[in-house]
């Protein structure tokens, strides 16, 4: 059996709420089938109060071996380094202290969600609570556990980043860890599992034809590509949202709104309104990943000129107003 403990701090709980939507199999059967013994989870377990604290203490003392520690939510260091913006209920002790001790006892440490990975939304604006991630403070390595941290099993913190995380990013990471199949090279430079972070949200986006012709949505509910005006970062966002899909057949772009690159450190401070594309001389500032600027500009003006009427008109409509022509691709 692989033992697992879950702890929440400065987040919204949405990664757990999302996780409960895991499918084929669902979360609870998946844990059983992967041989994962859930020591305690704040939203699911029977034990409460002193019983729960006793489990945490036993893990810290080493009397209950811990294979996987999952942390959800940012780590709040304030005020003044005391951590008292979150004192774990019933314990009188700041959660950051609990997390440091639990992380030292665990074979693997998993940051579930962008908050626990990098600080996330809680670290936005003035960051009143001095929020950070387990091993990152935004894009900077460090965070609560420090740059040099490696869990007993040898891996640094595994950052299952996302706001929220896709349920199956989490279940698949847990199954890989339980099966001993996740190594250091399976993590990208921000320590995210490559199985989802080596894809781009742009891959599989239903708006790709609009993208090709720079036929753009101008307002919410338009069908066009959302890169030019609506703030979409899908060409730069590392995640497989448009090939894996969410809650059945969804994704941000399919839901009609921009990808805000929620798997990335510092996504919470894009430096412009989330739903608006910043531009310089009419050209979006954030270019598609790995694309040279001169080429982007050249291709964009070329493809804009070549935009088929159908694509141009549909892009700024809330339904298909011009259907594609039917071409005979058979022999006769």
């Amino acid at each position, binding site marked *: 059996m692989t033992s697992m403990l879950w702890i*929440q701090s*400065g987040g*919204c*709980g*949405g990664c*757990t*709420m*999302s996780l*409960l*939507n895991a*499918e084929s199999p*669902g*979360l*609870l059967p998946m844990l059983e089938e992967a041989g994962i013994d859930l020591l305690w989870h*704040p*939203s*699911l*377990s*029977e*034990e*409460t*109060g*002193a019983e*729960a*604290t006793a489990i945490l203490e036993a893990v810290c003392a080493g009397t209950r071996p811990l294979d996987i520690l999952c942390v959800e939510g*940012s780590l*709040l260091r304030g*005020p003044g380094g005391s951590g008292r*913006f979150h*004192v*774990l*209920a*019933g314990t009188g002790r700041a959660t950051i202290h609990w997390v440091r001790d639990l992380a030292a006892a665990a074979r693997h440490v998993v940051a579930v969600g962008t908050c626990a990975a990098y600080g996330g939304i*809680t670290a936005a*604006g*003035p960051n*009143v*609570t001095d*929020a950070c991630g387990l091993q990152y403070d935004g894009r900077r390595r460090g965070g609560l556990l420090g740059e040099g941290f490696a869990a007993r099993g040898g891996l640094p913190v595994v950052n299952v980043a996302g706001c929220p995380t896709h349920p199956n990013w989490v279940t698949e990471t847990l199954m890989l860890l339980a099966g001993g199949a996740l190594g250091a090279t399976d993590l990208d430079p921000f320590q995210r599992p490559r199985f989802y972070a080596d894809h781009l949200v742009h891959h599989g986006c239903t708006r790709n034809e609009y993208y090709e012709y720079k036929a753009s949505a101008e*307002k*919410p509910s338009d069908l066009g590509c959302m890169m030019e005006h609506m703030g979409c970062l899908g060409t730069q966002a590392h995640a497989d949202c448009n090939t894996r*899909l969410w*809650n*059945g*057949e*969804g*994704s*941000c772009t*399919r*839901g*009609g*709104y*921009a990808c*805000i690159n929620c798997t990335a450190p510092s996504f*919470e401070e894009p430096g412009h*309104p*989330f*739903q*608006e594309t910043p531009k310089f001389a009419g050209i979006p500032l954030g270019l598609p990943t790995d694309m040279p600027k001169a080429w982007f500009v050249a291709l964009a003006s070329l493809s804009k000129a070549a935009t088929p009427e159908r694509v141009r008109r549909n892009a700024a409509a*809330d339904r298909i107003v011009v259907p594609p022509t039917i071409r005979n691709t058979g022999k006769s």
Partner: protein
Amino acid sequence: MTATAPTRRLIVGPFNRVEGDLEVQLELEDGRVRAAFVNAPLFRGFERILEGRDPRDALTVAPRICGICSVSQSHAAAGALAAAQGIEPPANGRLATNLILATENLGDHLLHFHAFFMPDFARDAYAARPWFGAVRERFKATQGSSLRRAVEARTALYHMLGLMAGKWPHTLTIQPGGVARPLDARDRVRLQAQLRSFRRFLETHLFGTALETVAALTGADDLDRWRTEGPAGDFRLFLALAADLDLAGLGRAHGRFLSHGAYPDGAGGHLYRRGVVVGGTPHPFDPAEVAEDHTNSRMTGRDRPHPPFAGSTIPDEADTDGYSWCKAPRLSGLPAETGAIARQLADGHPLVRDLVARDGGSVFSRVVARLLELARTVPAMEGWLQALDPAAPWCATAPLPASAQSIGLTEAARGALGHWLRIEQGRIAGYQIIAPTTWNFSPRDAAGVQGPLEKALEGVPVGDEGGASLAVQHVVRSFDPCMVCTVH
């Protein structure tokens, strides 16, 4: 024990199976709770995060306050922006928004009952009760058969959110002018099929009969009959254990209820009416009567009440008197309870009115109101789906004013949620949020008046169990607390 038994003080927490972290300090005397002090131990500062940003960013930031009522935060933000812009969504936008919000709310009710509330009755302390075997088989934490089926049913239900809202939680589909995701006729039949499956789940496993039969219940006598001769299902099982443990006699608060009104009908009203109910009498709700008191919260500004448009969120780091990060919202200077029970009371549903007339708000009536709402809301959603017009528009747009002051009111599963927005020079100058559990789990105010949970815990029998008392757990969870919204 002598007649002058000493008061015992103890700290209970972490409370699990609530959303977020919660601690309660209890003073016990003669085996009962003499006083309770509720502490929301986590502060993140969302109101400060929002200040200074482009107002539209509220649509991205506010939902992330809460992973369980994310859509309601989104709806309140969109409502505040719409009011500032002076726009109304077209009918499709309103209907789709209602559908998205109702889906979240029903999923929350389902999860609360099966995974948060009921597992306490499957604990060994109840092993001698006649219903225990069935309850343990169906509701044991993480394992019960009904619990697992409900998690699956919620996952399937939330496919409606994948389709209508892209993903859940933290969608950006809901906009001030409507929704960003148009729906066509095929989307509608797919959604109808998904909703029918959910109806079938409720009718087969939870109620054992048609939702309409549940919605037609009129009083406590009906429930008594259901308990003895009603259809087999988890509802009947709950009625049996509730009668055995007298959950109707447990957890009464102040008896003042607030609902912002849920699911706008496009004609200025709501599916579930807006209003305040005190002592069984309905009153209109006036947002101008709302103010927050900081006396016992670890916030500066203790000298005065804070109407939300003039509200502030400055944690007092040197504070030693406050016992919660939660502020104390008051309506006309007094606390109010919110949730499904308040919604159904304000809407005048005869079943909830009768239950509250007999025993006040209690563990029992809070849970019944939630289950009733599952039965009442699904048929309403079926009507909204039918009313969608795939040929009509989905989203209106309008420029943002450089300065404005506006309110967005909605209802999360657990009650009244309000956003108070101030825009100056095109940026957010003030953003105050009062969430359902801010109302329900507020600390004492300047007059020493307890928050609803604090009041509801007074007198709860704990026997020799002290902090391990299950009665305390039942009362706390009967509010379906969301602690991450409470302080935000």
